[in-house]
């Protein structure tokens, strides 16, 4: 199917649910304003089903029909363009093509202290039943932990001769994750010539995978990433195809 519409309780009914706050006190006009917004978003009819005064502001819930069509053929996604390998295959390929261990340096940069995500990817323990990168005998992993400054990261990457740098960013308020990622990729560009730069990978639950080029990194991983995907990508990008 290429053209689809939202489904409330019958095919093609186009129904969606929306909620938001407007910074105006609750009255009839405010309700009209809420409907105006829903209309502008393409909901018509828009059914205002709940309005809750919150001091000088009002919270609304609106149900309604949108006429927008979704064209699934026009959807842009970053599809996995590499094979998903087993740990064995990962190790074997690295051994065969690189003839040395592949060096990975990971960190959670900036003031972000959320390490659970990067630890899930790097540490032995892993996530969702999959072991982390430390488990792979041909990967040499340095996990720098949280709140690592960009200069420290570049320095360590240089020291460890990192083939790949894995950066995590979880806090997104005021686009912290985007700013930090840009600062990081710029620092690597500045510090190292093109051929010497490690592969730059960022991850975190609220990234948009399509933004890699914009952020100056090679790849973005997001919600639900597993270590195996990352390992497979590393092999694909740095060690060529398996066997």
């Amino acid at each position: 199917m290429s053209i689809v519409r939202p489904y409330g309780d019958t095919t093609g009914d186009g129904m969606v649910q929306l909620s938001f706050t407007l910074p105006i006190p609750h009255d009839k006009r405010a309700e009209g304003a809420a409907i105006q917004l829903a209309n502008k978003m393409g909901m018509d009819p828009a059914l205002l089903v709940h309005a809750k005064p919150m001091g000088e502001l009002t919270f609304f819930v609106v149900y309604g029909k949108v006429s927008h069509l979704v064209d699934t053929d026009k959807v842009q996604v970053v599809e996995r363009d590499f094979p998903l390998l087993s740990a064995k295959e990962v190790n074997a390929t690295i051994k065969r093509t690189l003839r040395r261990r592949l060096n990975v340096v990971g960190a959670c940069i900036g003031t972000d202290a959320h390490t659970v995500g990067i630890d899930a990817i790097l540490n032995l323990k892993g996530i969702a039943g999959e072991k982390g990168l430390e488990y792979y005998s041909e990967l040499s992993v340095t996990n720098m932990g949280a709140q690592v400054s960009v200069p420290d990261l570049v320095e360590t990457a240089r020291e460890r001769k990192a083939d790949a740098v894995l950066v995590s960013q979880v806090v997104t308020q005021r686009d912290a994750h985007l700013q930090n990622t840009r600062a990081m990729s710029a620092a690597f560009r500045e510090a190292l010539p093109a051929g010497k730069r490690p592969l730059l990978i960022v991850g975190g639950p609220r990234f948009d995978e399509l933004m890699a080029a914009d952020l100056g990194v090679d790849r973005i991983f997001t919600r639900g990433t597993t270590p195996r995907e990352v390992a497979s990508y590393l092999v694909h990008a740095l060690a060529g195809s398996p066997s």
Partner: protein
Amino acid sequence: MAGKLDLDPRVVRTARRLAAKAGQPVVDLARSHTTVSVERAVLRLAGVRGADQDGIPWVNRLVDAVRADVGLGHGVAVPVFHAMRSAGVDDITVLAQKAAAGAVRFEMPAVRAEVTAARRSAKKAGGGGLKIVDRRRAERERLIKRHGDPKQRPWIYLIVATGDIYEDIPQAQAAARAGADVIAVIRSTGQSLLDYVPEGATREGFAGTYATQENFRLMRAALDETSKELGRYVRLTNYASGLCMPEIAALAGMERLDMMLNDSMYGILFRDINPIRTFVDQRFSRQVHARAGIIINTGEDNYLTTADAVEAAHTVTVSQLLNEFFAHEAGLENWQLGLGHAFEINPDLPESFRLELAHALLARELFPDAPLKWMPPTKHMTGDVFRGNLLDGFFNLVGALTGQGILLVGMMTEAVVTPWLSDRDIALQNVRYVLTGAGKLHEDFVPAPGGFIQSRAHEVLGEAIALLEKIVDDSLLDAIADGTFGIMKRPADRGKGLDGVAKHDEDYYNPVTEALEP
């Protein structure tokens, strides 16, 4: 579960005795009257099928014709089977068509032997219908054995209500896959006041889908498939309410529906159907359900949408006791009594949750062997769907804590729309969370002796007994006329469908009742 409220068994016995006393006059009424729909149900069991070009079922045309010629008081069985013989027709549907065309006249045979002969044919034909019902029941038992019953109590009961049987089917299957144990197909708003059962597959209901034999068949077949796929027998529910209660019960029996909404007073109160019509229809339909092994769902929850759930809590109890009495009298067993009650207390009321617990436990302990049907909040649901999902969670918790048998899953969009597919998914997730995380919390939950919950339960039971005493003194019909239930005043001489009621003549004969009478 029993014993948490420390109810006095003597008090409970008193309540039951009073309910029986209050109900008996109504049973007597039901035993001495028939209705157009009872008679049509008999003929449906006897084999009349199909409808005319306007969609009026042949069975309606046939009963109308009989009635025009000889009245209803004898029952239609004898005139019809006598006419078949006289006219030399042996397909009863053909007879109906001829009758509709004015080509047959009906009479009560004058000769005793002819009466006997007509009765015999009628009995055979009606018995044929009951045999189908019996086969369906055996089939159900077989399928349950094969696929299995739900693993948990309460059974999870979900509604579909698109108005279109062909949208309902995939939604019902999806709901079953997502965890529903029972699927109810809600009826179109107008149906209960139709004095006929529509025919065929239908796609044009408002806020529900017409109950038709074909829709029953299609949905049951689809759910049979899904039951097989899931390795769990998925039950199907519809509504034996309204003016055609007896017929729908018969169709449900013949199409292997598993549960039916079937209340002794709902139609009176909420559809303004005449009380006598309802009580007569109701008794017949329950006899059929008893035979078909169908679990009935009563409608006490509805009272709490028009009356206050705290003030009127005891009217729910009274109605449950009456429904129980009528059900037993009609041959239903305890496992078939899905007595209704609901989580409808104003959530802003202090102690609302504890009151809900007290009421739900009371029902549980009064009817320990009945698979109580626990209904979600509706009246106090608003367009605030976030709050709605929360209330539903606490409703689910009361269900788990009080060992309810059937849990009608509440929808966060209750105040907004008939449920969306995603609403059902969110609602089931809610149920699953509560049952997984707190399903056995009742083991730890022992209301303090003499505490709030026990006291409230005793209070409600006391009020129920007082009300029953009053009803015994005045009569149930008067109580209904006075607005005792759901604040709806329904005098016995008013309401829809009264003209479809007839008193039995001396020679009234009904082969189906005969077979079903205990």
